[in-house]
């Protein structure tokens, strides 16, 4: 039975992670070791920030979500298994789920309940920087919204490939799909979205149901 990691094995993990980044072998420890967590965080915080603003155009929500994503990673790191994908893929899987459920959760659980509110950590300089980032991602958000009418499974895979530029294999792992299934869904999603965008440009009063 695996025991909690010894201090020595944690140290060794930190050394290994400093050299090569936090890999699948060290990931399960990021919830227990602050140094290892820092390495993991620095490696991914920018990608996570971009991931969020490609979907969310509100600075405070983006900050809250960034905090929630890393907190969820800390919470579930001990359940990580390498077959769930590389650390980045796994983290994107968490991010995707949290962003997708954001609206619903925000209605139910608000300020007081959250363990750590990212938006409370923003200052004026951050706000300006974040707004610039949010502006830069406007096109991605437009695309993200256009995907609204796709079935969830197709939307997920298209989102990860087209917006987050994951490879098909990475995206399939992040979405928990077989690569073959993912390929079929991606193809379908692209076709539908193209039709949708074309018809939207041609005729705004198109009432066709999907």
């Amino acid at each position, binding site marked *: *039975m*695996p*025991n*909690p990691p010894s201090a020595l094995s944690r140290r060794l993990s930190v050394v290994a992670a400093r050299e090569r980044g936090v890999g699948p072998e060290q990931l*399960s420890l*990021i*919830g*227990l*070791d*602050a140094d290892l*967590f*820092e390495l993991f*965080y*620095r490696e991914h*915080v920018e990608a996570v*920030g971009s991931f969020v603003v490609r979907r969310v155009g509100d600075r405070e929500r983006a*900050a809250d979500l*960034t*905090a929630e994503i*890393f*907190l969820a990673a*800390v*919470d*579930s790191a*001990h*359940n990580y*298994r390498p*077959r*769930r994908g590389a650390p980045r893929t*796994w983290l994107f*899987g*968490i991010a995707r*789920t*949290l962003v997708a*459920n954001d609206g619903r959760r925000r209605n*139910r659980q608000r300020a007081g309940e959250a*363990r*750590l509110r*990212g938006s409370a*950590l*923003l*200052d004026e*300089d*951050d706000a300006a*920087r*974040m707004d610039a980032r949010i502006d830069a991602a406007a096109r991605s958000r437009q695309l993200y919204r256009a995907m609204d009418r796709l079935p969830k499974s197709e939307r997920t895979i298209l989102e990860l490939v087209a917006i987050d530029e994951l490879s098909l294999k990475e995206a*399939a*792992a992040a*979405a*928990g*799909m*077989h690569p073959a*299934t993912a390929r079929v869904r991606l193809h379908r999603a692209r076709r539908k979205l193209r039709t949708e965008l074309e018809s939207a440009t041609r005729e705004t009063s198109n009432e066709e149901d999907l």
Partner: protein
Amino acid sequence: MTQQRRQDDNFEERLLTRLKDEVAERGAAAARLEAEGASIATPAWRRRAPRVAFAGGAALATLATVIAINAGSDTGSKAFAVETQDGGGTTIKVNSPEDAPGLEAALEEAGIPAEIDWLPVGMTCREARYKPSTVKSPLGGSLSGGTMAGPGAAMTIGIMTAEQYGEISEQYRRGEISADELYDSKGNITLDPTEFDADQSVVIYGAPGASPDLSVIVNGPTGPYTVDPEGGYEAHFGIAEGPVEPCEPVKAPHGGSLEEMNRAIAEEAAERGIEPITPGTSPGRRGG
């Protein structure tokens, strides 16, 4: 100086500081637990006999037989106990919803790929995170999933081939082992590792306390029972085909306080004119 301050003082750095504090706290808590180790007392409910309830519906095609298994053993201080059977099978008795990686490793060692998540009280995993599938049961028929709940070792997993189960049944027929022993070895979920396809796995998740699915308690073969104020757990299991998405914890539909649960159970029982079983009374052994 000013430049140094600018670099360290932004949202990402402040967030990192807060998150590191959180991680450090967890690390310290884990180290404390490790140091206390074996001295953690066994809660009384883990030593008491359990009641087992299966969710009905599509879940259990042929496993209509439900057995309350014996939990009077002295291995109750561990989250789970692994026993190797004479015929080569393995039985894993889950005493409490803890140590998911350990249980996962034990199942995998016995040849069953598994994804296990134990959650805090009142939580469950968001549904539809894997493609449901079925496997052939060594007892005959097929198995796709179910829910177990009870104030004890609600879930016992027997891992054996159909041949091994056949051999145990023969021993029972010849009177060499008792019905209890037969039930104990096959558990209330029986899995045959040779029947699993390469991309199939077992998904188990649950939480301490009351079952979020009230119908499991009220419609269970043991009849309605009130929830043990000292603990107990509920566990869902299913067979997945292909990858399993990570568990996203969500509030369970009936994961309220014990008082709320017990009130709901009492009301439901009264409506049906039946008496709920209360913890501490003997549940008896059921089978069939």
